[in-house]
Structure formats: C-alpha cells, structure tokens
C-alpha cells in the first residue's frame, strides 16, 4: 500500500502531498522535512529507494521535481517506480509537457488526476487514456455548470435592467 505521495522541488518546497494513512499535521511536517533531507541529498546515480522508519520510499526525479511514494517493506519497489512514471505521463498529457509551474498554479488539477490514478493507496487505473477521458468528462461538467451560472446571472442582470 502507498502511505503517502510527496512532490518536492529541488529547493525542498512541497508541491503536492497526499496522505493515505493518517498522519497528524505535526507528523506530516516532520516526515516532509526528514525525507526531503534524505532524498535531496542523494547523488544522481544512486538507486531510487530509501529505507525509512521501517518503510521504503521510492522516489524519482523529473526535471526540478522529486516524486516520492512511501510503501510497505514487502511492496514491489520497481512497480512503484513505474506508477510514478505513469502519473508523470498522465500529467504530461493533460498539461501538455508539464512543468513545475503547471503543478503550482493548477495544484487542484494535479490532485484530480492523482485521485483518478490512486485510491486508498492502491493503483486504480492502468490506462492513461481512461484517466484522461474521466478527467476531461469531469472538467467539462464543471465548464457547463459555470456557463449555466453565468447565463442565469446574465438573464437576471438583463431582467433587472
């Protein structure tokens, strides 16, 4: 099971956190600080796994961002690497060659994508196309609702003119 997902920038700034196991706010800050210290200081050619408090943290760097996932001792590290890559590819498709700024200004969208990919700390969907389709459908629902709202307010505005 994936216990949490962290996206940390090379400067140690947190870009996204998702906790599938309960951690209090205090613990979260501590975890981020601890892991940030360990992972950011590792050299480029080393393996992508860190033993940490009886768990394993799998991380991978994409440009300036580190994607980290914490898993149980008996989980498959190589698969988690693959899941991270899967996530990045979906983000890339959605944003069109994603960069850190996309994730900062549209963090909620990154969360929506993550929620279509992982649930309860387990992988939910292995098809990038399906995830993209589901996200697009929900985005368009939001758009329609917005349009409706603005057209109603237009009508009201015109009626009260």
């Amino acid at each position, binding site marked *: 099971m994936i216990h949490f997902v962290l996206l940390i920038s090379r400067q140690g700034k947190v870009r996204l956190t998702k906790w*599938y196991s309960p951690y209090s706010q205090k613990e979260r800050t501590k975890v981020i600080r601890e892991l940030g210290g360990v992972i950011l200081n590792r050299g480029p050619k080393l393996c992508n796994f860190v033993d940490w408090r009886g768990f394993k943290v799998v991380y991978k760097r994409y440009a300036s961002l580190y994607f980290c996932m914490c898993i149980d001792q008996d989980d*498959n590290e190589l698969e988690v690497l693959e899941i991270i890559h899967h996530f990045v590819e979906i983000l890339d498709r959605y944003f069109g060659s994603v960069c850190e700024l996309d994730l900062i200004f549209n963090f909620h969208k990154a969360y929506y994508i993550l929620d279509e990919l992982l649930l309860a700390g387990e992988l939910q*969907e292995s098809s990038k196309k399906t995830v993209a389709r589901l996200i697009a459908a929900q985005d368009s629902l939001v758009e329609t609702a917005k349009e409706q709202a603005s057209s109603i307010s237009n009508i009201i505005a015109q009626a009260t003119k």
Partner: protein
Amino acid sequence: MNPFSSGTRLRDMIRAIRACKTAAEERAVVRKECAAIRASINEDDQDYRHRNLAKLMFIQILGYPTHFGQMECLKLIASAGFPEKRIGYLGLMLLLDERQEVLMLVTNSLKQDLNHSNQYIVGLALCALGNICSAEMARDLSPEVERLLQFRDPNIRKKAALCSIRIIKKVPDLAENFINCAASLLKEKHHGVLITGVQLCADLCKVSSEALEYFRKKCTEGLVRTLRDIVNSPYSPEYDTSGITDPYLHIRLLKLLRILGQGDADASDRMTDILAQVATKTESNKNAGNAILYECVETIMSIEDDGGLRVLAINILGKFLSNRDNNIRYVALNMLMRATTLDAQAVQRHRATILDCVKDSDASIRKRALELLYLLVNENNVKPLIKELIEYLEVSDQEFKGDLTAKICSLVEKFSSEKIWYIDQMLKVLSEAGNFVKDEVWHALIFVISNASDLHGYTVRALYRAFLTSTEQETLVRVAVWCIGEYGDMLVNNVGMLDIEDPITVTECDAVDAVEVAIKRHTSDLTTKAMALIALLKLSSRFPSSSERIKGIIVQNKGNLVLELQQRSIEFNRILQKHQKIRSALVERMPVLDEATFSGRRAGSLPTAISTSSGAPSNLPNGIAKPATAPIPDLLDLSSDDVPAPSSSGGDFPQDLLGVDLSPTLAPSGAGKPPKASTDVLLDLLSIGTYLPVQTGSSAADILSSSQDDKALASLSSLSANATSPVNAAPMMDLLDGHGPGPQKPKENGQAYQSLVAYESSSLRVMFNFSKQPGSPQTTLIQATFTNLSSNVYNDFLFQAAVPKFLQLHLDPASSNTLPASGDGSITQNLKVTNSQHGKLLVMRVRIAYKTNNKDVLEERQINNFPQNL
C-alpha cells in the same frame, strides 16, 4: 461584495506567495489571506466559498494550519452542483483525516452522493470514502459500497473495489460480505476493474481465512487463465508499457497467486506452468519487465516447493545482482534476504558480490547488503568475512560506521568460540571505530577478557599497543585502561607470552604513562577518567616503585571540578596515604564473573543503584567502611558515568568483591528469599503425586492458614516446619508432617495470591507466582516460571519487563537461558515490584526473546490481569 472578503483570486495569491523573498514575508502574506478567508467564512459568503477553499488547500500544502476551513468543505459537499462538490471533496481529503470528529458530519452527505444519479458525483464520494473514512463511517456506508461493486459503469466498480479495501482494513468483520462480489470482479475484462478486484481479493485473504479458502478453491484456475491471457496478449496501445501489456495487472495477479499458493501444494501446482513462463519469457531490459520478474521470483519463493522453479528464481536474482542498474541490485539483495531461509547454499554462491555491495557508494544498497551478509555468515566463513568487513570499516563513511560496527560486533560475539580470535577482532573494531561501539559490547568484551585467564597477558599487551597508536577511540581507551589496571604486572613482565606475539618491553613507567595520557586526554569523558583513576589505584599496588608518581597524578585530580572525580581522587589518596596495609587486598584483581550473572545483568534492567538490605557495612571483609565503597562496585558495573556513588551501594561492594552471586542476596535478609519451589499452592495440591508428601503437607497447611490468620503465619514462617504445623495445621497435617520436616518448605510470607498465567502462546507459557514480604505491602515478589510448549529447544532465552512510572521493577538473573523442549523443565526468574501507589493495579509490559531453530523469536505482551492489592 462585502468589504472584508479578499478580492484576490487564487492565481494572484499564489503569485504573491511566490514573490516572497523570505519566510517571514511569506508568513505575512499567508496570515493576511487567512484573515480574509476567515472573515469571508464568518460572513457565510457563498460566492467565494469555492475560491476560499482552493486557497486554503494551497496554504495547507505549504504547511500552515487550516482547520478553520474544515466546515467549508462540508458546506461545499452539501451543495448541489458538481463543481462545488468536486472542490469540496478534494478539500475534505486534504484538510481532514480520519481522526477528526468533524468527519462524522459528512457521513450523511456521502451516503446521499453514493446514491446520486450522476456517476461522477458517486465517483467523488467513493474517492473520499476510500481515502479518509474512519471505522465508523466504514460500517455505516459499507452496504452502499457493496451495491456499487455491481454498478453499470466500470469506473465506479473499480473505485468501489478499492473503497472496499479500506473498509475491510478498518472493519475486518465486514470482510465476508465482500467475498462474493470480489470473486465476480475477477471475471471482468476491464483492466481497471480487474486490477482493483485482484487487489481487493488479496486484501480479503489477509483479513479472512474464509476468503482465502474460497478464492483458493474457486478462483485459482481463473486467475491463472487471466494471467496467461495477459502474458500472451498482442500489443495493445492503451495498456502498453515499454513493450509489455499492463505490467500492473501482471504484478497484482502474481501477488494474489502467491497468497493463494502459499501453504497449499495443490494450488501451487496449478500455477507452476504460468510462473515458469513469466520467469523465462519476460523481457528484462526495461524496468517494467524487471518489476514483473521481481514479483514472479517472490511468488516462486513463497509457494510450495518446486525445485526447478526455485533454481530459475535464484538465477534471475543472480542476474539482477550483477546488473549495472542500482535499483535492480537493490531489489536483488532484498529478495536474496528472503531466499536465505529457503536455500542458503544458493545464496552463499553470491557472497563475494554481496560483499562488494556492502562497499557500494549507495547507502541504501550498503544497508541491504550488510543485512543480507549478516544472515549469510556461518561457522565456516565467519573469519574471512569479518576480516573483509573490518578492513572496510577503515574506509567506510562515517554514517555507515555505526551500522557496520554493530553488525561486526554482533557477529564476532555470536561466533566467539575461540576467545583469542574474538579478542583480536574486537580490538581491531575498537581501534577503528571504538566511538561507535555500544556500551554493552565493550562490557561484554571485558567480561570475556576477565574470564580468559590464559589470555590476560596477551590482551593487555595488545591493548597497550593499540592504545599507543590510537587514542581517539573512547571505548578502546576504556578497555585498555581497565586491562592495564587489572593486569599491569603482566604487561610489564611479559607474563603469559604467546608464540604469535612480538616481544615488547614496557616499563612500569610506560604503563603509568599510558593511564596518565588517558586521564589527561581532554576528549576523555567522565567514565573514562573515572576508570583511569581506578586503574591508577590498582597500579599503585602492582608497581610499588611507581607509587609516589601515581599518588602525584591522583593528587592533581583532587581539585577536579567534576564532583565524581574529585571524590574518587580524595578517597584514593586517603587509601594510598593511610591504609597501606589493606591496599593490596583492596585492589586485587577482579574476580571472574559468573556467566549467568553477567548475562542476567545484561538482560535485566541494570539498576543504577541496587537497593540492598541494611547492615551491609558489618559484612565488610576488611573493616574499611566508606572510602573504598564508591569505586569498587563501579568496577563491576562499569557504569560509573552516573551520579556520585550512592551511599547505599556500599552494600554491593562486599558481595561483588567476594564474587558472590547477587541474586539471592537481593531479597532483604529480614524476609528470607522467596521460595525456590513453586508457591502456587493449588498447583502443588494437584501435583501431589510428583512431590514429596512432606511438601504437600506444608503447602496444604498454607492453604488453610491463609484463610485464617496470615500474620500469625508470617511471623512464624521463619520457624521450622515442625513449629509451624502444630499451631496452624489440622491434625491430619500433623500426620503428614510427622514424616519429618521438608527440606524445601515454601514460606508463605503474608497473603497467598493465586498464581497467574501471565502469558500464553502456542509456544510458550509464563506463570507468575506472587508473594509478599511482611511489613512491606508495597513490594511484591514475583516468581516467573517459563515453560516451553513447543518441541524445539529455546536458546538465548531472555525475558524483559517494563512497568509504568508508579512502579519500580527489579529483575534478578534467570535460572538459565536455555529452555528445554515440550515442557521438559523450565526457567525461573525472580522479579521484585514496588508499587508506589499501593492499591493501584499493576501493569507490566513483557518482551521475551529467544532463538529456536536458529531463528530469533520475539514475543511481546502487556499484562493487565494482575490480582488486586499487589
């Protein structure tokens, strides 16, 4: 728009925060935003609720408190539109976790949304439920989720499946409701549903043996077929990952097959073909392929034995191990660790490679490799491996030295059949990484040295040499100083010279020099300096000619600012000046420590100041009272780094000096020690046949008397059995007693307590028998009896206990550390518990460690069912 609500958009806020140059600036911006959001919340401003929550989420990611926004999430979730719900649920998952009570308020909205006509809203609700639901919510909403497992849209079914995992993890009782639905998910074609369904089945198997049986019988065949289909499936762009169709599905199927095959030969048999196919056909040049191979190897290792497959698996691991990719090497080490229990021989073949990995530049790989190597060491290869490891110790990173040292020490101790080898290796470790050596390790070394009388001379010379070359390692200095103090004469006179040694000439002056260096070395800590002072005192008697010089060094420390050192110096100085006659008797060599006592002490709570009975000074062998009492117990305890010697520790001194086993003397003399034989009267009654009739009689008498007048018995308990029985026992007992007084008469001091089965597992039973000493109702003596219920002998048996602060616990050494199999004998250990809040129920946490079949077993338990009034 109200004038207080913030007009900034989310994007503007993020820009403003990013523009901050310092943390203080950022805090100011966030504070301002938070104030605006709070104001807006108080206004109950509906238009900006959406935007406020989005801002709060961003603030939350930055690590600022956002609890005040929790209710806003609930409000958004309760609104009708999809956009509001979408952001509301996202906020709920970010801002809350299962432990917040606010979460309960959302249950109703969740229930409504799970039944919503819009499938995307159902999806949102499932997502929130799966990510943060509490046990209560899981129970309340489980029926909805069960129903959704059969929803028409597969994307809802897959979410419901993962949601079910969360539910059964929170409430395992609900597992059986999901078994049938989960099994039907396995027949699906949609990959998302299949992946989540397989995962659900795997988790069901973990919480319910019923589910495991069911899936094993009904689904193994189908799963094997699904796996075969996916392995042989043609290229499909939607699921392709570097040439492999859906590796995630592969891996999950293999994982579930592993669970089903474990411990079931029939099921294992059915999956061997496909496992062989996966193991041989999977491409290993990409990460996805390796991930599948890795999972496949683990499944092969876990299912019931099939020699051919195992060879295949170990070969794959061998290939992994020689891979250039660090990730692959890491997982290979990881898996070989598990393989050692199955086929140690095959893993041994890779020993050289593993040893190389210990020296890798990557900390993660080093750690794994060291753990693996630790498992591989045996009688035959220990010497070369330890040699390699110690050589590596010289060049390893500082951060790694701690781990490495601990492992080396543990191995050297484990295979320490040859004392000279053990001492040699430990000296090397001490000189290389003495600062990383734990206290108990060098204590153990001193213990071994003092027991190896033929090696005293050799050791002290070797230590002296090592000390001359490196004084940086604290523990090396300590051990060297201790040995020079004890065996200084052997150092100077080359006593007990071994063939392998180079001759060395050390004068008395050199030896004293060495100790002086230790005491003056500014990096030496208090313990080392204190030990050096004692060594000097000892040397003053060993080298009469250097006596004056030693006195000079001791006198220099009389003004030491550290009280402990000052006191020692003053006391030692007095001994040197005024008590020349008894000095030599006082500083004789330490008696050899009894092994059982040592291991008992090591295991038990090493008390800083053992509280012993009063009247000890009268036992002093040579009439010296105070001055010498402080340091000498320390010599044995080797833990002088605490408070200035407590006066009560004077009691330890004569006993230690005489080499008396501490265990019996610890019980205050006034009360006599707790009976060795079981005081469990009921048990005695039941076992009449096996005990002497005499003993039965006396314990029966105790039963009767305990119901009458306990105090009378207590006062008489020190009398002989003959005297006791006429007073208390019925005439029938007299008859029995007439046979003569029992040699092992149990003494019931105070009340009789029913004995307690403190702990019972399939492998071990722990009985506690309680007794009290008259006059101290707060103190309970507990005799713990350990019985082995399995058919294997337990070695290195170790019992540890911890109590809360209101209790004080003292553990005596156990009667043995080997527990024979099948209840054929037992270990007893005495505990003394003092309850500072007499009347409050005792609690104790116990931990039992032992080795059986070369495997370390650790059992832990909290004991809450102590009798009252202890």
